[in-house]
């Protein structure tokens, strides 16, 4: 573990303690049953910390092995992170079947666009910083997809319990700070940013600790049970009403446009 400076080790210890606190809250308040994937994500993070201790204390014949193993373990954690977020979104949008369907499509489209942009942005750095680019690309895709879903929730005025808001906010905050930190380091240290690993670890771990504190605050009470029963309209109602309303709104817009043009002409 001598490869890391003392502040990084301290922060790492704090992060593990915060993760243990979140896990304890999940089990004590009975939230682990409501959020199995989120519980798995926190557990996996703790296991990853143990795995990394082993990886960095062991002597490897190939010096690149610890880095590859560490990043591979990160990949697994990130996949579970995506599942945990989808789980929370699904709980929030479960009573709104139509909007959940729309949310899935929004997730697919935004993720597709983000992956394309990431591929374009990373093409010149790929050979140099493969893992780094993958990590940033993932967080970019994750943050944009999550924000797209949250915008959808906001647009349709869907009430989200504050605990779920905090959980989603923690994920999004962590991803956004990861993008910023990765990009700023790349910008300031150019091709030498691997030599400043301690700075990168300090900044990313700090943002993760902030996210953990937010999650602990969200989980200090049992999560509300989502048992809303909506008076749903039939599909036929929507199919009939929606085009009619849109047509009226379109007419209203035309009137406004005509009013504006006429007014401009008369001046």
């Amino acid at each position, binding site marked *: 573990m001598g490869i890391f400076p003392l502040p990084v080790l301290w922060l790492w210890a704090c992060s593990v303690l915060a993760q243990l606190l979140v896990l304890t809250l999940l089990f004590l308040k009975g939230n682990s049953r409501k959020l199995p994937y989120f519980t798995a994500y926190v557990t996996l993070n703790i296991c990853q910390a143990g795995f990394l201790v082993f990886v960095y204390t062991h002597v490897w014949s190939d010096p690149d092995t610890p880095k590859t193993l560490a990043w591979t373990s990160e990949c697994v954690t990130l996949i579970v992170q995506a599942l945990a977020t989808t789980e929370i979104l699904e709980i929030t949008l479960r009573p709104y079947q*139509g909007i959940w369907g729309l949310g899935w499509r929004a997730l697919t489209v935004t993720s597709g666009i983000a992956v394309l942009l990431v591929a374009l942005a990373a093409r010149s750095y790929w050979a140099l910083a493969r893992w780094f680019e993958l990590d940033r690309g993932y967080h970019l895709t994750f943050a944009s997809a999550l924000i797209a879903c949250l915008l959808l929730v906001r647009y349709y005025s869907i009430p989200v319990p504050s605990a779920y808001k905090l959980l989603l*906010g923690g994920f999004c905050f962590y991803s956004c700070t990861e993008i910023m930190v990765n*990009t700023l380091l790349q910008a300031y240290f150019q091709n030498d940013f691997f030599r400043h690993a301690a700075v990168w670890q300090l900044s990313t771990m700090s943002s993760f600790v902030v996210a953990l504190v937010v999650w602990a605050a969200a989980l200090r009470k049992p999560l509300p049970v989502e048992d809303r*029963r909506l008076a*749903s309209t039939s599909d036929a*109602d929507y199919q009939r009403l929606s085009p009619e309303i849109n047509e009226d709104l379109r007419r209203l817009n035309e*009137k406004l446009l005509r*009013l504006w043009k006429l007014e401009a002409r008369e001046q």
Partner: protein
Amino acid sequence: MNSTLLLLIGFAVLMLLLLVWVLRDPRKHAKPDGDLGSTDELCQRHVSYFPQLRQALAAEDFVFLSSRGSPQLARRMRTERRKIALAYLSCLRGDFLKLWRLARVIASMSPQVGVAQELARLRLGMAFSLRYEMIRIEFLFGFAPLPELGSLSDVVSRLSIRLETAMNNLGERAALAAKLASSLDDGHGLDTR
């Protein structure tokens, strides 16, 4: 720092700002006219005041004042008319926003939502807001023709009636669902978790 990196930082900052905006409680920051309000309130729409407004803004009064050679009074009347028209336009916008939100509520309660329909409504709402602002600016510098304002009111009025019918249907369905839920809870409770 190259443009790609700048773009990435800008994107991350934008995401953080959007996060703060989407997570804050909309009820705490909602404008009073943006509320859906009760059905009674919906019935008392601003469009219903259009006949009074038309009377107050009648061109005959203006011609009469001009013919009597009182330009100062005519100018004052023009300014006051402008203020009234602006207030009326603002009220119409409030009505539009309420109705637009009602349309979204109907969509959110539907088991299936059409992407094309929703995108079209979003586009219409944005276009309305943009045009409203343009017209408002025009009103500030001139005076819009009254007949056009009238036809605008007719459209809002029609839209209002259609949505009120839809809301009544929804109300009936809500009552039915509540009745069904309570009858299920009385017997073997329905676990919706």
